[in-house]
């Protein structure tokens, strides 16, 4: 009887261990994916060799965005191209990621028409695995005599 009890307890402990390993892995992975998805979105929007690549990149981006934010960020909507892409002056652009954590990405744009010292800050929420509530800051004012945080 005692042997049966010990075996049953060992079985339960093994099941608990398996659950803890899987759940722990999923938690860690979720944090990693949240950071990766933001970096991917920024690169899809602003890292291109020529502007003709942009529509194709936006097709990929649409998979990451929730419906409301797709309406806002869609390259075909009113003023989006003017507000965002006019400043690139149709030149090649490269994204240099400075820092990222779940929900935000800081980056610089390496483009002949955009000051290289300007830091851009992209923030977002993840809802049902998709990027929502996207915001973007142009960080211009920094401590006098310094180069800002980055």
């Amino acid at each position: 009887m005692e042997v049966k009890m010990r075996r049953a307890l060992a079985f339960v402990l093994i099941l608990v261990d398996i659950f803890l390993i899987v759940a722990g892995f999923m938690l860690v992975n979720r944090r990693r994916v949240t950071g990766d998805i933001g970096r991917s979105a920024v690169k899809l929007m602003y890292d291109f060799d020529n502007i003709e690549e942009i529509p194709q990149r936006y097709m990929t981006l649409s998979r990451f965005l929730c419906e409301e934010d797709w309406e806002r960020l869609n390259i075909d909507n009113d003023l989006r191209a003017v507000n965002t892409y006019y400043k690139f002056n149709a030149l090649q652009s490269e994204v240099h990621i400075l820092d990222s954590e779940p929900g935000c990405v800081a980056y610089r744009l390496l483009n002949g028409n955009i000051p290289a010292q300007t830091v851009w800050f992209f923030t977002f929420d993840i809802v049902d695995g998709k990027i929502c509530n996207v915001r973007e800051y142009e960080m211009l004012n920094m401590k006098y005599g310094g180069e800002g945080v980055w």
Partner: protein
Amino acid sequence: MGLLALVTILLAGFFLYTLVADKQEAKTPPRVITKLLTDLVAAGNNPTKRKGTLSLCIDYSDCATEIEASDMQEQDLQNFTEVLTPRDDAVVGDYEITIVTDRFVEIVLLDAKGRPLYPRVGLVYELTDDGLFIKNYTLGRLQPFSRYDEEYSSLWK
């Protein structure tokens, strides 16, 4: 059996630690950040009071002379005044912090009746080792994406 129990305890500990670290994402901003914003808003358009607030919250210890420190305060005053002045020069009565991450806060300015004054302000900061002063910062305003951005819709009417 004892080894199995030990492994379970260790795994449970790791899992709880990960879970707690995940939940801690609802952060609160450092005290020096809230003090800076609260006192700057309370100082209104008084540059002397605003400079006094900056000197209490920003680290100027690397300045060689008082004149240099004063020059830096003047520039910092301009930086903060620029972003804390709403588009239509409305009077800021209060503020609300809407996003907090490790080194970033998003700020919505409010008028005396608590109505938002756009655009939002973003502040990235780096604190001194003791956490009492802001060692470095970068400030900016929210950028519009398209006409669907309600905060900017008045500009496009």
